[in-house]
């Protein structure tokens, strides 16, 4: 590890900081090693360079010093409170001995990953948010944007719809670009992917009145910020079937289709894969789309990174009427079987918890597997056509159905992980149902807000444990249950798999657990200060492996935990990271 700091400068990083915040130690990292395209394609095992570790979104680390034999020896190396209260879903990155830690309100901190010392802090100066932007204020407080590293820069997407590029050495703004008009309601709430010299990002706010008809995945030149292409998830003039699927509703009367999770990338085919969320309004009775499938909502999109053109799509949940959106992480999995390489896209994309595998070169459906209790999908044909439960389609306003999973259950933003070691996919899930009824609720008289009423979340009949860690044994022909671990609290963090044969994940009861990938046995657990959150990750410095566990307040920690009075939330957000490592004399192996 070669952390190189220039003499301390007490400098105000932004105009905001100069007027209202205490001055932080703004150091400068000397000789920061640029993150090359080659590194992004093949990240060193010791580092964690992007959202889920690698382009394949597997959330897997090749480090094995912390393993089934040593995990019980983990000790706290250091901890750090995040810069802001509020809701966060942080995904820390590590490169060249530096941890880049982002939290809500677009705050990024560079921290010495070995010692936990702050190096610099960037606070994004958002224009004062007027009362008419309440949604953006809300989003800023709960923002989950991951960040990206490329060359000597840190790249972030902001609540006010900007791409901001920082110098990794000192956290100062190198350049920024206003991508879309925040006055219409556009806002970034997921982080960017850097691939093929492009910043690939996806915008949110697509259910706001002013954004009608346009929800985009976009590419910008990573050097200049010039827009190279954009793909509209709810209006594809190149595909008549997409247009017809909205039942005659013109593009300007369509909403939704937000890609809520950073996509994956296959350098071999120069393709990026993104999940897309629910349509707006939620119920077809209100959105006017009849029995149309409302493409490309709840779909996987494979997009040519060079042109921005769609290569293929697959819809996981057509005709969504219940806000069971399917935008969550897509993982790329390669398996060689009998000399044949199978290139799959594997995902539990949405709240109904159904796992899917697709051929990622063609989009061909391979298999699906139900996990939690769900009643919205009746069957899936051999060709992958998904049939919804017609009995749950509303025929009248006010009609109410019990729908499983719930709007805050099933598979949420918490990402699963795949382990090549065991060829298993580990998915954090929540059992839940709620009643859903389309109603014209009109919060403010006459205003276009509110179209579905959800009842309280309840557990499915006969189930008392909300949390489910589901291990799926996957290959190109099937995904079968390898093991299940059921527990009362809901999972509130993403999952990390490692070459140490472990899976790490945390829950609303503030407990981080390590499971044995093979058996599902809990081999280590630690209770921390707040619900476990964000994206646990791992890195190594000077031959020692570190485990990073974020904690704090997230939408899952709040909405899910409130259902269990015996698992009280702490009063404060507790937004922090805890960094564990083995005792210095307990090193047992090096990275593979």
């Amino acid at each position, binding site marked *: 590890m070669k952390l190189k700091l220039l003499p301390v400068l007490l400098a105000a990083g932004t105009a905001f900081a100069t007027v209202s915040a205490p001055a932080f130690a703004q150091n400068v990292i000397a000789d920061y090693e640029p993150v090359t395209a080659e590194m992004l394609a093949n990240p060193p095992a010791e580092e964690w360079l992007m959202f889920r570790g690698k382009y394949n979104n597997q959330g897997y680390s090749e480090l094995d010093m912390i393993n089934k034999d040593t995990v019980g020896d983990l000790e706290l190396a250091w901890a750090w409170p995040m810069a802001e209260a509020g809701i966060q879903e942080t995904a820390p990155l590590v490169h060249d001995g530096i941890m880049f830690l982002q939290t809500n309100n677009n705050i990024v901190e560079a921290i010495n990953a070995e010692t936990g010392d702050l190096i610099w802090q960037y606070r994004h100066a958002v224009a004062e948010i007027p009362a008419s932007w309440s949604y953006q204020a809300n989003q800023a407080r709960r923002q989950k944007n991951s960040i990206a590293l490329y060359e000597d820069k840190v790249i972030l997407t902001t609540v006010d719809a900007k791409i901001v590029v920082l110098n990794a050495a000192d956290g100062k703004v190198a350049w920024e670009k206003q991508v879309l008009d925040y006055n219409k309601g556009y806002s970034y709430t997921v982080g960017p992917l850097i691939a093929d010299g492009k910043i690939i990002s996806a915008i949110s706010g697509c259910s706001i*009145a002013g954004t009608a008809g346009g929800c985009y995945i976009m590419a910008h030149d990573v050097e200049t910020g010039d827009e190279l292409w954009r793909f509209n998830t709810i209006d594809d003039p190149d595909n008549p079937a997409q247009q017809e699927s909205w039942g005659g509703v013109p593009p300007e009367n369509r909403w939704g289709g937000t890609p809520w999770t950073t996509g994956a990338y296959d350098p071999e085919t120069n393709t990026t894969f993104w999940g897309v969320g629910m349509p707006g309004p939620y119920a077809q009775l209100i959105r006017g789309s009849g029995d149309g499938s409302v493409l490309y909502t709840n779909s996987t999109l494979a997009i040519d990174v060079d042109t921005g053109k769609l290569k293929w799509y697959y819809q996981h949940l057509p005709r969504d009427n219940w806000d069971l959106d399917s935008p969550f992480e897509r993982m790329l999995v390669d398996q060689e079987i009998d000399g044949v390489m199978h290139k799959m896209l594997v995902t539990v994309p949405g709240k109904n918890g159904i796992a899917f595998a697709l051929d990622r070169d063609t989009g061909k459906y391979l298999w699906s597997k139900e996990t939690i209790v769900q009643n919205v999908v009746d069957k899936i044909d051999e060709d992958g056509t998904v049939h919804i439960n017609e009995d749950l389609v509303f025929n009248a306003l006010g009609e109410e159905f019990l729908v499983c999973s719930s709007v805050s259950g099933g598979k949420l933003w918490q990402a699963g992980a795949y382990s090549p070691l065991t060829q298993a996919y580990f998915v954090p899930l929540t059992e839940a149902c*709620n009643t859903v009824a389309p109603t014209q609720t009109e919060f403010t008289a006459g205003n276009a807000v509110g179209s579905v009423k959800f009842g309280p979340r309840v557990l499915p009949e006969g189930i008392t444990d909300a949390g489910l860690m589901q291990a799926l044994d996957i290959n190109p022909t099937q995904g079968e249950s390898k093991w299940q671990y059921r527990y009362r609290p809901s999972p509130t963090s993403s999952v990390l798999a490692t070459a140490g044969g472990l899976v790490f994940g945390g829950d609303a009861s503030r407990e981080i657990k390590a499971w044995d990938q093979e058996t599902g046995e809990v081999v280590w657990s630690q209770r921390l200060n707040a619900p476990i959150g964000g994206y646990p990750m791992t890195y190594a410095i000077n031959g020692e492996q570190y485990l990073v566990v974020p904690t704090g307040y997230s939408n899952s920690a709040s909405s899910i935990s409130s259902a269990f009075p015996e698992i009280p939330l702490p009063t404060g957000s507790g937004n922090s990271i805890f960094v564990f490592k083995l005792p210095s004399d307990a090193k047992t192996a090096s990275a593979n």
Partner: protein
Amino acid sequence: MLRFLAFAIALFSAGTAFAQTAGVPPEELNNTRRLAGDSINVCFDVTSLGRPFDEDVARAIGDALFLEVNVIDGFGGFPLNGDGFMDELTLAMNNTCDVFMGVSVSANSPFSEAFALTRPYASIPFVFVASDPAYQSLGDIPKDRPLGTAMASMGEMNYITWAQQQPDGQSWVRYPYADPDKMATRVLDGTIAGMIVWQPAFSRVLAERSDADALRIIDPSPLPEAFVRVGALVSSRNGFLRSQMDQAIDALVADGTIAALLEKYGYEGKAGE
């Protein structure tokens, strides 16, 4: 703090759940009691279609109660699905607002028991607007012509409910619009044959657009009439204020103040219920 926290948790567990937001971090809720003296903080949705009318009503209520009205723009700009609304309302009502004006009082009220609705101070209709002089009523419009409806509104609900009761082919195709101005444009360019819109929204279109003269309200039959009953929200903890508000509204309805304000803004409908 415990009192406010309990209030917040009750809201989270009993209120409406949305896709991407779910709750306010406790630190965001002020642990202070407002010392208002002889004034009340009255908040508004700045995007509300009836915002100026609601402010005048608030001032009239303040006068009736011998209270100074502090006008505060509350919030606005939410997605169609209401994502984030209850979070922001919780913050506003806990930290800033005594009263929130201009809310819809209906059987499907989305507000949790943490909030109490006053009685309505006005009932204002949805209207059907067309530009083609050949149409004297909605019933004159051929069934193959699409209509526009104000997204997620009582008027739209009224239409959907009616249409669901008709035989196949005996209702109109409907496109939902979130922006009344855009919907008016589509009536004028012929994309849609007419629109179901809240009358204050139509009044604003008439006031702001020179090309709106061609738009006119026509008979909505065969649809039944649809109204929005407009009231205010107070904290359920403040039963005294709600009682005083209700009494003031009754008095202002009775003495013609509300009716005069409706006339001032060119709003149809009636004072009270």
